[in-house]
């Protein structure tokens, strides 16, 4: 195809598109993407679900017709650690209500995720408040809830282990054993020699708390049983608000011991996820399916907000310790890092969260000698699981605060110490990965600096603070962070998953996208249409997207890990190119032309003799041969390896890069922080849809700021005290600064049309930049988030005393 030039270079000139977000391209070679022929990729076209959502027509799980379904309710543990002595349902007199306990689940009473330690219903003991103990089903929700209240559970309370300090002393469940749910260590260079050569050595400890996803649509599933001729339960059809239909499929296949075809899982329109609908839908789908088997009816479970907050997984609290050796000019020579995560009561996804935390913990910085030790400990608190960023925000918060400490100790400004150590192309990461391409740490920092005049304003605020009079005027601060985020699964994850993506030319001449990647707001469906349209060479209107449905789409893996555009989009681009190739060959054969002389571009087959509309050729093909399918399976990058025993090798196929500048005003009397401006610079490779990409960056960064100063899950005796929207505060419009969103495009060879992942990167840098801005304004250096007024006040008092 003309335009498939082997190398395309972009000028480094910047262009502001449509007067909005700024996009610029960094000069870099990309190997296979014919970008000058792109017609859909790179455009902010209307998302396919857009009009349905703005008119209220989009149907979420609780909007679907109930058709006489029954309703489930859950009885939950009130104790963080206790033996279950008895469960007495004799007071339930509703003749139609059915009650299930662990003995009704069967031999496979666990959520089948990574380890089988997470009970679907507690059996003999409970390990956290809110743990499911019994289930009830009845013809109406009111009757199910009424029956649930009549079930009496007798407990014998045990001493719980509620935080990391206590957890370090022993296992809350088995007593006395080492309390480690997962470990992960990385080493590069000679750390001891590095410290010996250091001119300054600094230590720091940084902590972060729970974070609630607070998707606006709570969890919900509807399970419909398949009954055999004799009325026996032979399978289940689940529709739900979820991220990973094949995770639920795998969990239910395991639970019931049924074949793949007996279980069908479909995604309903999903009102937000952020990782929160990665793991927990396995649990709630299992509950609904078990109840459905028990009563022979379709069963719906929709959580109210409070139950959703009590029951579902959260972001792992963390404690990260740093010991850092530097030269006097700020050059890093040794880093010793200890990452500790609170996993809660069960393993869920903790090993993978830890792995990502460890791999990002040295930050976007080159250092020759690095030692990282990571552990997840068990506590008697609700299990922590996937949340946007997946461990990286915690460890990047720590390293960014530590770099601020380095800057302060050396009398450098925070920008200077970052730019000195930021990764350049050709640098090597702690896992020994050579960063060959698409490295933008310096570029995003420089752009952030020039967009905000960072250095001058940081220095001016420092000066103003020194000269400050007690006049009640707000204190002003500015802070910067730099960060990276690996796109796709860690290490060999993609190789193990071997995801598939497919496209189909249907009899109605539409090309249908078939994948299990879900859209829970990010815009997956629209972006896949754009990618497939350009990969095939057809118009956007010729492409439609099939909903994620395990009976109809291949397993493209879960919708997590910033892998949707780069990994699954890449599969779909390859499948689309295959389909186009078949049609091109067919068109050439039909017209007696050499296949090489036919090009399919923007909806037309072109030769030097003229052009034929895509649909004409497609129609002839379908009439003669029927629908045409093309499938692509993941292929590892040649030469790329990762050793899981030593944690050495290529940890991620590509990295996104970001810099944040946060500006604040702090009231000197109340210590209330107001964020006045947010500037983000992100490189996520070639941008498929600028408006939606900016939306990911802006929404993710506001979540990061919320985590940094507003969102605090308060816990007492293992119970969340603020388990409602009224008490768990997320940012409102009133808390939201004006945002400048700058997208630098430094394409990768690893993704379709040069695209990398965008989903998680924006969660990584908001909190540390905010804390640096608070320090710039007040002189108070915090090492824990959220930076609530109470916390700043306490630090201020402590400083005055000392």
């Amino acid at each position, binding site marked *: 195809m003309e335009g498939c030039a082997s190398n395309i270079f972009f000028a480094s000139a910047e262009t502001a598109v449509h007067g909005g977000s700024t996009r610029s391209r960094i000069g870099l070679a990309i190997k296979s993407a014919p970008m000058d022929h792109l017609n859909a990729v790179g455009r902010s076209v209307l998302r396919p679900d857009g009009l349905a959502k703005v008119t209220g027509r989009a149907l979420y799980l609780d909007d679907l017709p109930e058709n006489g379904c029954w309703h489930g309710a859950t009885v939950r543990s009130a104790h963080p650690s206790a033996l279950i002595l008895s469960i007495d349902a004799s007071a339930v007199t509703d003749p139609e209500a059915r009650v299930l306990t662990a003995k009704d689940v069967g031999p496979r009473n666990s959520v089948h995720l990574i380890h089988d330690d997470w009970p679907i219903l507690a059996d003999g003991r409970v390990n956290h408040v809110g743990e499911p103990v019994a289930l009830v089903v009845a013809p109406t929700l009111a009757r199910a809830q009424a029956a649930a209240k009549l079930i009496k559970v007798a407990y014998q309370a045990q001493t719980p282990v509620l935080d990391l300090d206590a957890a370090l002393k022993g296992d809350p469940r088995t007593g006395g054993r080492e309390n480690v749910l997962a470990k992960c260590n990385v080493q590069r260079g000679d750390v001891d020699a590095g410290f010996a050569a250091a001119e300054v050595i600094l230590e720091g400890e940084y902590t972060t708390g729970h974070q609630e996803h607070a998707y606006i649509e709570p969890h919900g599933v509807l399970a419909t049983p398949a009954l055999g001729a004799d009325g026996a339960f032979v399978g289940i059809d689940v529709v739900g608000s979820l991220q990973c239909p094949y995770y639920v499929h795998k969990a239910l296949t395991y639970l019931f011991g049924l074949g793949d075809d007996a279980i069908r899982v479909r995604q309903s329109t999903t009102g937000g996820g952020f990782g929160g609908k990665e793991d927990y839908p396995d649990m709630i789908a299992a509950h609904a399916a078990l109840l459905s088997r028990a009563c022979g009816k379709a069963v719906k479970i929709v959580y109210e907000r409070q139950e959703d907050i009590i029951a579902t997984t959260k972001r792992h609290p963390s404690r990260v310790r740093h010991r850092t050796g530097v030269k006097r000019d700020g050059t890093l020579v040794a880093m010793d890092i200890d990452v500790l995560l609170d996993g809660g009561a069960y393993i869920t996804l903790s090993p993978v969260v830890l792995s990502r935390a460890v791999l990002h913990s040295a930050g976007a910085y080159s250092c020759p000698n690095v030692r990282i030790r990571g552990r997840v400990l068990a506590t008697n608190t609700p299990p922590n699981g996937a949340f946007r960023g997946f461990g990286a925000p915690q460890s990047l918060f720590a390293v960014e605060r530590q770099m601020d400490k380095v800057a302060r100790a050396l009398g450098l400004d925070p920008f200077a110490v970052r730019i000195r150590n930021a990764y350049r192309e050709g640098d090597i990461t702690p896992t020994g990965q050579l960063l060959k391409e698409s490295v933008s740490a310096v570029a995003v920092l420089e752009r952030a600096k020039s967009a905000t005049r960072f250095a001058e304003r940081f220095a001016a605020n420092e000066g103003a603070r020194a000269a400050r009079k007690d006049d009640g005027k707000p204190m002003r601060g500015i802070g910067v962070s730099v960060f990276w985020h690996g796109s796709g699964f860690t290490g060999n994850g993609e190789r193990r998953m071997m995801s598939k993506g497919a496209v189909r030319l249907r009899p109605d001449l539409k090309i249908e996208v078939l994948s299990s990647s879900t859209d829970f707001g990010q815009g997956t469906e629209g972006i896949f249409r754009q990618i497939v349209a350009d990969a095939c060479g057809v118009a956007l209107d010729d492409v439609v997207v099939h909903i994620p449905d395990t009976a109809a789409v291949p397993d493209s893996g879960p919708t997590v890990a910033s892998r949707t555009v780069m990994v699954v989009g890449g599969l779909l681009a390859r499948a689309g190119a295959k389909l186009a190739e078949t049609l091109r060959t067919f068109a050439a054969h039909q017209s007696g032309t050499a296949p090489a002389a036919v090009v399919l571009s923007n909806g037309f087959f072109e030769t030097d003799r003229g052009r034929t509309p895509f649909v004409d050729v497609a129609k002839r093909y379908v009439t003669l041969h029927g629908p045409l399918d093309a499938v692509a399976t993941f292929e590892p990058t040649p030469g790329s390896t990762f050793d899981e025993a030593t944690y050495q090798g290529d940890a991620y196929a590509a990295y996104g890069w970001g810099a944040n500048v946060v500006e604040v005003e702090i009231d000197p009397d109340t210590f209330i922080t107001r964020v006045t401006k947010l500037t983000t610079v992100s490189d996520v490779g070639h941008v498929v849809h600028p408006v939606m990409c900016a939306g990911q960056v802006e929404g993710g960064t506001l*979540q990061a700021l919320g985590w940094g100063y507003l969102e605090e899950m308060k816990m007492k005796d293992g119970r969340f005290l603020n388990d409602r929207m009224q008490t768990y505060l997320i940012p409102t419009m009133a808390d939201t600064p004006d945002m400048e969103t700058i997208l630098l495009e430094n394409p990768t060879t690893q993704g379709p049309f040069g695209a990398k992942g965008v989903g998680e990167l924006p969660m990584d840098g908001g909190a540390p930049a905010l804390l640096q801005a608070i320090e710039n304004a007040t002189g108070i250096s915090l090492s824990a988030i959220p930076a609530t007024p109470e916390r700043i006040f306490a630090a201020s008092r402590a400083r005055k005393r000392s």
Partner: protein
Amino acid sequence: MSPTYRFTLNGKPAEVAGPPMARLLDVLRRDLGLTGSKEGCGEGECGACTVLLDNQPVCSCLVPLFQVEGAVITTIEGLAQGQAGALAQGQAGALAPDEKATELQRVFANEGGAQCGACTPGMIVTIKALLDRHPKPTRDQIREYVSGTLCRCTGYERIFRAVEVLTGQRPAEGEPAAHSDEVSRT
């Protein structure tokens, strides 16, 4: 026997028998099949259930049924039917299509105001009320008026911008589309 309440719903007379303290949100969603208004929290905090009651945005999860007797209710489903706009001009009962509301919905979708969409109906209904009061709102006016509706996806920037594009204060970034192939989920 539950009492019967009469009110105007999306421009048409409605009659509902139910307990006086039934939540308007449940009446709309369960009894009347209008599922556009969402329940995000059930305590008036998130604003996903916002409807217009006599042209005022209210959380329908906090409104008992007896309070809507004789009132004019507009939900996301009826927003573009004209009742709300007509009321603003003192023409109750008129039912011309409200092109301004349609345009608000179109621009909101084009400019990335909706991601997951769960807050979107409440958000759009609230913005409609804002625009009736401030036809060309400043960012601080938007910030104050709409801050009772929570969005966890967008960071609000694209929502601010959609309102600013709609009111001619900023050039569009999204491409206007002739139509959209919706993904069918049923």
